[in-house]
């Protein structure tokens, strides 16, 4: 009986803490790492921020594939800078995630063991140089649409990281579009290459914005916590509305027979998305899932001696400093 009483008091306290917390978010106040937060808020944020970080890191792989084969020095320095930015974005986000009490090692381990997810788009291969253009234009374009609302998300470290990411991301999209533009102004063969890249990346880019609202399990809670500020379907519509006219300027055809501007709604109507494909890729059966994870694991395992050497060097320097001080 006594224990029951104690439990009730605890539950009461918890409830009032949660009410204070919810009210803070409703007032658009930020939550900082040491503030009290419901366990579910912490867990959801660890999941989303780490997925985001993993996506940046794995996202380097499909593009890294073309660094040595970039068609000019100008393209090569731009692509190198872009891939380096993705690494930086991954690092901002891992740091933000660690403020929630999970270690970098645990985060890496979740990625390498396949426990954590990353954006399914990076499990598609980059077959031609035009894919680098299409990725910058479409994948970074969709990422920007996803990320801009996150700059005002409720968790302070995540919001601050997103402000930096968004500032840097716009060059990524522009360099991609410029690649597409150059190809489309080139020979027929080059234009065909650009069209082929659009054909292959269009649908995966639409899927990138997540399952439809009625299928999305996390949307409702995430909207309440302002971890999400627009639903997946709203973001997808925005992406389509702004990207179709860009394809028109390139003179390329979006691979959707049902795509049509709707004068009544002021939006484009579009065809059915193949969600079966999306879930297959999410479940690990995409074209490059195994390759991506094994590349990450190899990079981590083969870099172990470098990390160890750096620690050994730091130890030696520290010892030397102590001796000199004596």
């Amino acid at each position, binding site marked *: 009986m006594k224990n029951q009483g104690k439990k009730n008091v605890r539950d009461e306290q918890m409830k009032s803490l949660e009410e204070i917390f919810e009210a803070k978010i409703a007032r658009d106040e930020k939550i900082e790492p*040491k503030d009290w937060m419901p366990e579910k808020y912490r867990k959801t944020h660890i999941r989303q921020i780490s997925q985001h970080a993993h996506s940046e890191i794995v996202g380097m792989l499909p593009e890294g594939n073309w660094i040595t084969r970039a068609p000019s020095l100008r393209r090569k320095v731009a692509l190198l800078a872009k891939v380096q930015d993705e690494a*930086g974005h991954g690092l901002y986000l891992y*740091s933000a995630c660690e403020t929630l009490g999970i270690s970098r090692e645990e985060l890496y381990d979740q990625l390498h063991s396949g426990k954590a997810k990353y954006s399914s788009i990076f499990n598609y291969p980059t077959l031609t140089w035009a894919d680098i253009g299409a990725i910058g234009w479409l994948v970074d374009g969709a990422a920007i649409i996803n990320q801009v609302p996150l700059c005002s998300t409720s968790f302070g470290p995540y919001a*601050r990281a997103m402000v930096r990411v968004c500032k840097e991301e716009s060059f990524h999209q522009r360099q991609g579009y410029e690649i597409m533009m150059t190809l489309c102004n080139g020979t027929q063969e080059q234009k065909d290459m650009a069209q082929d890249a659009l054909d292959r990346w269009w649908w995966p880019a639409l899927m990138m914005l997540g399952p439809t609202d009625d299928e999305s399990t996390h949307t409702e809670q995430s909207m309440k916590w302002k971890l999400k500020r627009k639903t997946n379907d709203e973001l997808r519509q925005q992406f389509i509305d702004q990207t179709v006219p860009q394809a028109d300027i390139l003179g390329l055809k979006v691979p959707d027979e049902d795509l049509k501007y709707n004068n009544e709604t002021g939006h484009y109507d579009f065809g059915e998305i193949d969600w079966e494909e999306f879930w297959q890729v999410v479940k690990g059966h995409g074209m490059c899932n195994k390759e991506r994870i094994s590349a990450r694991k190899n990079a981590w395992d083969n870099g172990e001696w470098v*990390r160890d050497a*750096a*620690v050994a060097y*730091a130890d030696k320097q520290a010892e030397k400093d102590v001796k000199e001080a004596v």
Partner: protein
Amino acid sequence: MSKKNWPLWEVFVRSKNGLEHRHFGSLHAPDADMALKNARDVYTRRSEGVSIWVVESKNIKASNPDDNGEMFEPAADKAYRHPTFYELPDDIEHM
């Protein structure tokens, strides 16, 4: 140090002379020199700074938000520390 995992460092960047160093974020590095080099690559790829400080995170003592009441509330009822507390005639100048 002798640990397998690199410790965490906090990074502070001065954007330009005349401004203070501001907290930019954090990163892992085996020692202070590497932390500084990594901070250059992670946080100043677009000329965001002219000076960087790094400090190992464990050396920062932070106040606890649970104690915010006793820490910060005493300042709340001391309006007399602000110039607007004092009543002056409207037509007085240079004050």
